[in-house]
């Protein structure tokens, strides 16, 4: 078996780690294992390395020599790339966008192909209905604005009632 990380040398270090019931396996060559900090962890008096350490080890090594400057902090949660690397945890959904380029090589190493093929919120009928409703309401709001602009207040009132019906969970017959 080839090392998952460098894909060049024979993997000699095999790690299996279970976190919250989810097991992960890593097969690394000696050099990559050392780079990911595993050798040091095994030597520690207490055997207790975290998957996050491994993740951060990977991330750290894949970032070395990278010249792309990372955005300093995620706007939503305030995480810096450095914090994500050290903690081995992503701060929020936005971080995946903010640090997309920096995270990509690591995600590829964990998962292989980055192509989701499972369930999506969009295919959920309930979500689809909600999104449709939201779009409908947004469209009606624009029409109201246009009606007010044209001083057609009757039409605006009709549209407002329609929005009310929609928001109360009823179906629009528009």
């Amino acid at each position: 078996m080839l090392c998952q990380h460098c894909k060049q040398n024979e993997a000699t270090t095999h790690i299996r780690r279970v976190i919250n019931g989810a097991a992960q396996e890593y097969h690394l060559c000696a050099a990559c294992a050392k780079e990911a900090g595993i050798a040091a962890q095994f030597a520690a008096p207490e055997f207790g390395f975290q998957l996050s350490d491994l993740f951060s080890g990977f991330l750290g090594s894949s970032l070395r020599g990278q010249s792309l400057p990372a955005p300093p902090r995620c706007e939503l949660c305030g995480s810096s790339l450095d914090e994500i690397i050290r903690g081995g945890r992503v701060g929020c959904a936005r971080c995946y966008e903010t640090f997309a380029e920096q995270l990509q090589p690591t995600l590829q190493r964990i998962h292989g192909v980055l192509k989701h093929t499972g369930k999506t919120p969009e295919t959920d009928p309930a979500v689809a209905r909600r999104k449709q409703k939201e779009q409908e309401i947004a469209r009606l709001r624009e029409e109201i604005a246009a009606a007010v602009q044209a001083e057609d207040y009757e039409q605006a009132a009709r549209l407002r009632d329609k929005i009310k019906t929609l928001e109360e969970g009823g179906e629009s017959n528009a």
Partner: protein
Amino acid sequence: MHSYEKWYAQKGAQGDVVLSTRVRLARNLADMPFSAKLDPQGKENVAHEIREAAKNLPLAQKAIGAMRWIDMAELPQLAAVSMAEQRLVSAAFARQEPGTALLLRDDRRVSVMLCEEDHLRIQAYSPGLALDETWAMADEIDTALGGSLDYAFDERLGYLTQCPTNLGTAMRASVLLHLPALETLDRVGRLAESISKLGLTIRGAFGEGSGAEGSLFQLSNQVTLGISERQALDNLQAITSQIAEQERRARKELLQRPEWENKVWRAYGILRYARLLDSGDAIKLLSLARLGAAGGILPIEIETLNALMTDIQPATLCLAKQVTEADQRDRARAEMIRENLEE
């Protein structure tokens, strides 16, 4: 209380080998920091948003209306640990971090941990091998909640999770297997190797490190990105059936040996008459008794043993037997087992 009322006591499909099935989905809200970045107030806000969302949707109301809302911090510690022993919550969640909450269906076959590692961890359980049914239960709750919540989702990466290893479907489906014969014949290690090549993983369900307390193993899918839920479930179903078949053959081989027939009967004898049993001893003996019962040697129902394997765990035992002192536990445990094995 009759032990059969508990879902984990029931004998489901392939119940001689497969104790139970669990499907877990991780979900997060798009506009909130993940759990680790939230203080207790932030966690409460997330829980509140989810609770409100659940109220506003007819579909969610139907699915979730029958669920109880539990503020973890307000739960007595024993009750929280007992939930972990019953596998309703993770061990980490049983630590009752401030701000965390649990949605629990009355029959305890669906639970939603709020602000565990992810904002939502939807879990569904069934006795025996029942991946389709269990998936459908988790999927229903997910769809219901997703109808009024904005889930963190990316077209390429799937459901976004705090730990990048869960990206994609963010689904872990697992089966709890009783493999005393394969373990005795030293075949689990080899099994684990070939299983990992198929995108699955097997580990001891209880106990630390490589030891599997009571010969109970958990087999689950490992790959979550680039594979659909359906594929992962089908894969797990096929491998589970194969392992169960191997275990049955190994059991036959084992139970033909006189020393093993003796072992099983001795375990039964100790379980029926012992006055003190610690949990390690008890689980070993119950595992042997389960092997004997499934093989038609011992006059015990599998359901009784399934229930006991969970109910003798420390916190669950203390709650059931109203025991407070640790040194009374072994006596209470032996008593509980005797009561259940009376002829």
